[in-house]
């Protein structure tokens, strides 16, 4: 039983790590500020959730698992707030969204 | 983490090395950056990496302090300071060779100093021979505080901690007084400075 649990948790955590890497690749690769934000939200949601789920399977039913659940809730409540305020600040400072025909430049005053 | 097996130690050392390399990259980025907002952001990243290294080295309480002070408070304070000054760093007038030399020599001396220290987490090191075992074994019964770090800080060294708290409190008041904006008194202060100079 515990071996199966171990394998499932390894698979979940590795998948989470893969999604984190994909998100990071997206942050590096995407053109323009807003498109990069979409890539970063993959890390915040799927990557973080899968890793925390994997750790939850490891910890079993203890105080640590309660803390992990709180950690997950924290990510889910706070990451959209942070992203929205980031996007809002960029928008109000006049960062233009990238468009396919406009070329790779999306920089503006900072 | 003395209880771990060999593989855990290798894993931890590898992680620490990678994180320290990233910290080096972040530090070079900070040094080359002219935009001070960028510097603040990279400084926050540096602190997050530093705190992670400290956790890997098993210094949980120091990591907590680093995260709170480095990534939390100082980001906010530096932004407040930038608001009062300006957003870009001016180019230095002459090449900073002398400061670089001083920093390099100091760093080399510090590294040389660490050569004389006992190895990391060596159980025979002097620091693990004198008071540390006493704190660990007798601390909980003598002070009634379940956490050893809290026992040391709040009971064995409580006057020390009290003094520290005063210092931090005073520093906080000083920073708030300096960074506070929209106070009606500020224009007058400027006037006085102008008249003096």
């Amino acid at each position, binding site marked *: 039983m515990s071996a199966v649990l171990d394998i499932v948790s390894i698979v979940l955590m590795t998948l989470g790590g893969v999604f984190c890497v994909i998100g990071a690749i997206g942050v590096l690769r995407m053109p323009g500020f807003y498109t990069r934000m979409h890539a970063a939200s993959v890390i915040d949601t799927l990557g973080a959730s899968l890793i925390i789920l994997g750790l939850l399977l490891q910890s079993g039913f203890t105080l640590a698992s309660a803390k992990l659940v709180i950690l997950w809730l924290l990510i889910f409540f706070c990451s959209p707030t942070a992203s*929205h305020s980031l996007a809002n600040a960029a928008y109000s400072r006049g960062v233009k969204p990238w468009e396919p025909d406009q070329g790779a430049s999306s920089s503006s005053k900072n | 983490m003395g209880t771990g097996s060999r593989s855990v130690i290798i894993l931890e050392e590898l992680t620490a090395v990678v994180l320290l390399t990233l910290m080096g990259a972040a530090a070079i980025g900070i040094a080359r950056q002219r935009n001070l907002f960028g510097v603040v952001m990279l400084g926050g990243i540096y602190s997050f990496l530093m705190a992670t290294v400290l956790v890997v080295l098993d210094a949980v309480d120091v990591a907590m302090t680093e995260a709170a002070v480095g990534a939390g408070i100082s980001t906010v304070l530096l932004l407040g300071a930038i608001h009062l000054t300006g957003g870009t760093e001016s180019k230095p007038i002459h090449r900073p060779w002398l400061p670089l030399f001083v920093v390099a020599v100091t760093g080399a001396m510090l590294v040389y100093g660490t050569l004389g220290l006992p190895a990391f987490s060596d159980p025979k090191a002097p620091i693990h021979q004198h008071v540390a075992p006493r704190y660990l074994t007798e601390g909980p019964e003598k002070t009634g505080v379940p956490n050893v770090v809290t026992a040391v800080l709040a009971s064995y060294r409580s006057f020390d901690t009290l003094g520290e708290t005063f210092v931090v409190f005073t520093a906080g008041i000083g920073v708030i007084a300096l960074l506070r904006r929209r106070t009606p008194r500020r224009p007058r202060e400027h006037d006085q400075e102008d008249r003096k100079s």
Partner: protein
Amino acid sequence: MLRFHSISVVFSLFAFWLLLSGYFTPFLMTLGLLSSVAVVWFARRMDVVDQEGHPLHLGRGVMGYWPWLIVEIVKSAWTVSKLIVHPHLPISPTMLRVKMSQQSPVGQVVYANSITLTPGTISVAIEEDEILVHALTRAGADDLAGGDMDRRVTACEARS
């Protein structure tokens, strides 16, 4: 109402304290309870305890909304991941305005945060009863404009 709220805040803080400390001896638990009461007392003196920071009334409605939202997040995260690793990066970023049918500010926040939490769409600004959304692809924008999420959030607001 505010008194009831303060008490519930004390209890949540105390629960959080228990969670972090993990000590269950009577003396330490009393200290923890006292510190939570002190924090709420300070907060009330500073006038920062309010309904919005502690939305108890949304409890029941949200429970039905979350599973749907999580499934939605996983689906769109998968879509965005496929876009990222695609060699040609086939994105078509669009800005669009979405109508909000929620009445209360908390409902609007839930909707805007759900949009942001779903990878591929980000709420950029809120104007009157519209949200300015940046979408990574035209398809994602059309999905959102369909208004399925909006209806569900409004339903969960009504149920509570």
